[in-house]
């Protein structure tokens, strides 16, 4: 294919731009300038991502050239700096690109000491995430996987809550240990790949990984090496213990990045790097994985009901939702897989919306305990409406975006096993219980001395929440464009999976 006329591709732009903007941000001393810089940079990234999104209709060859790139890197060991975007990559980079300006604008009023570094680290995290979603070489993927983690660790440890140091360190060690196991897995698979070109005996390219022939025994070993890393990231029960602490102790923007985008890395990695590479082992262990995912859903939902802290409640509800996505991925069923794709996007939007609302309440009142709140609706009607929409989307009410995804995932799970579907289905009821209880305790009822002081939200927060609400309904009512976008990825993965 002749790509000579293409000077720079979308994946490169999406990585280098936030990276350079982030590095530049470290040298900004003034707080206002740092904020403006971060918002400007993230909006430009969003524009790049949208442009890439709109260009999809062009001729296949040119489209390929614009979205795929490969540079010679470590040619003697068969690794090249290869990036590429298929439907899933496009969708997740779009989610990443949308999230950051939303987060920056929504938290505009909150000031962080040393904001140049703060926004610099945020933008570096964005670059790392973009890299994870576009990497087409296992080594490049691994490097970005870690690079997305390091800035977030620094964000949480420096600007987090009181117990931030132990909480985020637990998070770091957990994920670091997991990803090192993944590194062993990658190297193990690498030793059995065929070279794509030239010098090296083996190759790290995604194509080579897809075509690797491993015996059943080898696949079983590598499966767990990969899966533990991804399960920690998602997180799936029983690897979730880092998550509530980390979410609770992190500064709000970092929490939003973690729960909105970083947890999708785990699901994404399963779809891109686990199912096509290790089809036999994935099939063999699918019932175990679905079993622990479903168990985790129920477990997390039950704990969420008992929580008195808004952040911990949202954290546990997130574990439950991710559990469903993880289960649906392993059903290896077209409907469920498409549902997962839609839900990855929707969950990102919804959970970020939810965190924004929680953050707004905490910023004004300084507390986030359900028992101390109440009657917020009297004073802050707009905030209440926004939260109710987000909360209902979170429990997948029809017309909201999460309904589409969850419905498809449940229908796939139902085809896989009625029992699993039935057990998992109860988590919807549990979700309704804890979400509605939360709405009731925070927004309804009598306002007390504390909540009487709350003011309604200002224009920037209104705009951001309105954008998110529109996104919620748009995807909820008309999900077809999104399904079309990810169709190629779903078909490719499942074809490989069934033939492998």
């Amino acid at each position: 294919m002749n790509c000579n006329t293409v000077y720079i591709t979308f994946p490169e732009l999406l990585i280098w731009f936030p990276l350079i903007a982030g590095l530049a941000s470290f040298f900004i001393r003034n707080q206002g300038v740092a904020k403006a810089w971060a918002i400007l940079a993230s909006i430009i990234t969003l524009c790049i991502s949208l442009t890439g999104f709109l260009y999809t209709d062009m001729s296949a060859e040119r489209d390929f050239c614009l979205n795929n790139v490969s540079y010679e890197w470590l040619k003697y060991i068969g690794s090249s700096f290869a990036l590429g975007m298929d439907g899933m990559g496009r969708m997740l980079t779009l989610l990443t690109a949308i999230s950051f300006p939303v987060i920056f604008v929504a938290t505009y009023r909150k000031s962080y000491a040393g904001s140049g570094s703060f926004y610099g680290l945020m933008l570096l995290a964005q670059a790392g995430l973009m890299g994870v979603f576009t990497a087409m070489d296992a080594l490049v993927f691994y490097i970005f996987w870690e690079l997305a983690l390091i800035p977030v660790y620094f964000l949480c440890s420096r600007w987090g809550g009181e117990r931030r140091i132990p909480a985020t360190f637990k998070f770091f060690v957990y994920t670091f240990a997991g990803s090192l196991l993944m590194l062993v897995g990658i190297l193990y698979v690498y030793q059995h790949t065929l070279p794509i070109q030239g010098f090296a005996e083996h190759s790290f390219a995604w194509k080579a990984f897809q075509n690797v022939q491993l015996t059943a025994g080898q696949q079983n070993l590598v499966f767990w090496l990969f899966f533990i890393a991804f399960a920690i990231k998602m997180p799936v029960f029983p690897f979730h213990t880092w998550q509530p602490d980390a979410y609770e102790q992190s500064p709000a923007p970092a929490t939003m990045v973690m729960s909105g985008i970083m947890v999708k890395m785990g699901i994404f990695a399963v779809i891109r790097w686990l199912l096509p590479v290790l089809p036999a082992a994935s099939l063999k262990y699918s019932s175990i994985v679905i079993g622990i995912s479903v168990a985790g859903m129920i477990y997390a939902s039950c704990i969420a009901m008992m929580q008195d802290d808004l952040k911990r409640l949202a954290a546990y509800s997130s574990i439950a939702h991710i559990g469903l996505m993880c289960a649906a991925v392993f059903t290896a069923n077209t409907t469920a897989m498409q549902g997962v794709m839609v839900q990855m996007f929707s969950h990102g939007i919804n959970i970020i919306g939810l965190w924004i609302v929680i953050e707004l309440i905490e910023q004004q009142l300084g507390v986030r305990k359900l028992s101390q709140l109440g009657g917020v609706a009297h004073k802050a009607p707009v905030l209440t409406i926004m939260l109710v929409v987000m909360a209902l989307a979170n429990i997948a009410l029809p017309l909201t975006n999460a309904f589409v995804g969850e419905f498809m995932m449940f229908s796939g799970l139902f085809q896989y096993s009625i029992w699993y579907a039935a057990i998992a289905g109860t988590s919807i009821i549990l979700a309704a219980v804890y979400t509605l209880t939360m709405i009731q305790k925070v927004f309804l009822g009598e306002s007390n001395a504390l909540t009487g002081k709350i003011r309604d939200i200002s224009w920037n927060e209104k705009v951001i929440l309105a954008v998110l609400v529109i996104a919620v309904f748009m995807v909820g009512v008309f999900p077809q464009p999104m399904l079309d976008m990810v169709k190629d990825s779903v078909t490719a993965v499942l074809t490989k999976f069934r033939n492998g």
Partner: protein
Amino acid sequence: MNAIITTAVWGVVMMFGGVFFKGKDTPRYAAIAGIILVLIANCLEMNDQVFFSPDLHRMFEFKPFGLLFNAVAFACTLLYFLLNGRDVARVGSNVSEYFALIFFVLCGVSIASSFNTLLTLFLGIEIMSIPLYILTGSDKRNLKSNEAALKYFLMGSFSTGILLLGIAFIYGGNELASFNINDLNLAGRMPAMIGVGMLLVLIALAFKVSAAPFHFWTPDVYDGAPTVFTSFMATIVKAAGFIAFLRLFSKSFGVLHEQWQIFIAIITAATLVIGNLTAVFQQSVKRMLAYSSIAQAGFMLFAIFALNDDAREGLILYSAAYSLATIGLFAILIRLEDYTIEGFNGLGKRSPVLGVTAVIFLLSLTGVPGTAGFMGKFYMLMAALKNGHHTWLVITAVLMAAVSAYYYFRVIQAMFFREAGTLSAEPRDITPGFKLLLIVAAALVIMIGLYPEMLLYWLHS
């Protein structure tokens, strides 16, 4: 050959120079000039420009691999002299002699990377070790320094004896009655004499590179020695020990790799576990770095475990990554004076350049992608997995790497997430030049991490 001769000559120059040098800083400048000269001489040899070519009777062999290692070692020494030159002068009054001893160590390093007989191996190891005994005890009035020197000397002599005994056994078992490491001709079977000799040599070399269970001297010696010299001992000298280890075992015993591989596997696992788990409990950063050097040695042992091309490249990368990061960290540590972890509290705010470069060094030691340390670990793991069936060892290694994050990150936490106490002393003698050098070192760490080919280029061309 160039390196051996220039280091030896310059060592002698420095030794006698002590009498003639007038100014306070002259020995330091002379040493820096000397190391640059040595580095140039070595680079010339890499391009086939040899000053002398005497008949060596197959005692030495100069290959790109050994020369590349020399270049890395000399470049790191140059950085070390530039960063720590003044601190060397602070140890005692015989400044010129300290530098002379360091040049003699470097002579031993260049022998260790090019020996071709068991005798030259012995010479190389001893020329490396004996100056170090003296440097360890150079802080004469400090009881700990004296204790460390004596301990190091006694233990070192003991292992030297074992090394000699092993060499004698191997020589006795060799049908050709030759000391040459290529003449062993094992052809698939290991005579008992040579087997015993190999084990004895293995033990002696494991002692020199502080692999468990022969590591007991390391923490006390590294802790007791003046910190400037610890920095040198723990990095360049240790890496040179590994080069010698690798060279001997691949040339002499490479054919029977599978028979002795399990010994190395056990030593590696023990070194990793003991080094990392003990480092977790240290309160002093200096002592933590001593244990971390044991832990890092565990990773370098993978080169001898795997014994393939990736492992050789990995060892070069690892030596460079580990030496750069550790020398940088020690340079910062020396300026702090308070060696406890609390001494680092708030350093990131007090002195951002020191804080950020220290973070890069620590991330590299942990093995975070984007730094040279990652590439080193990556090549080692790749080599080990390519070699075969000991996947358990690789998994142990990565879990231990995760443990190492615990103690390295404690320093990062202290620097950036904790406030400075009222008692924390300001780091002293922070000149713009010092900061610039730290930035250069950190940039090198990142550049090697992103593009290791810039170092390995010499092996591939």
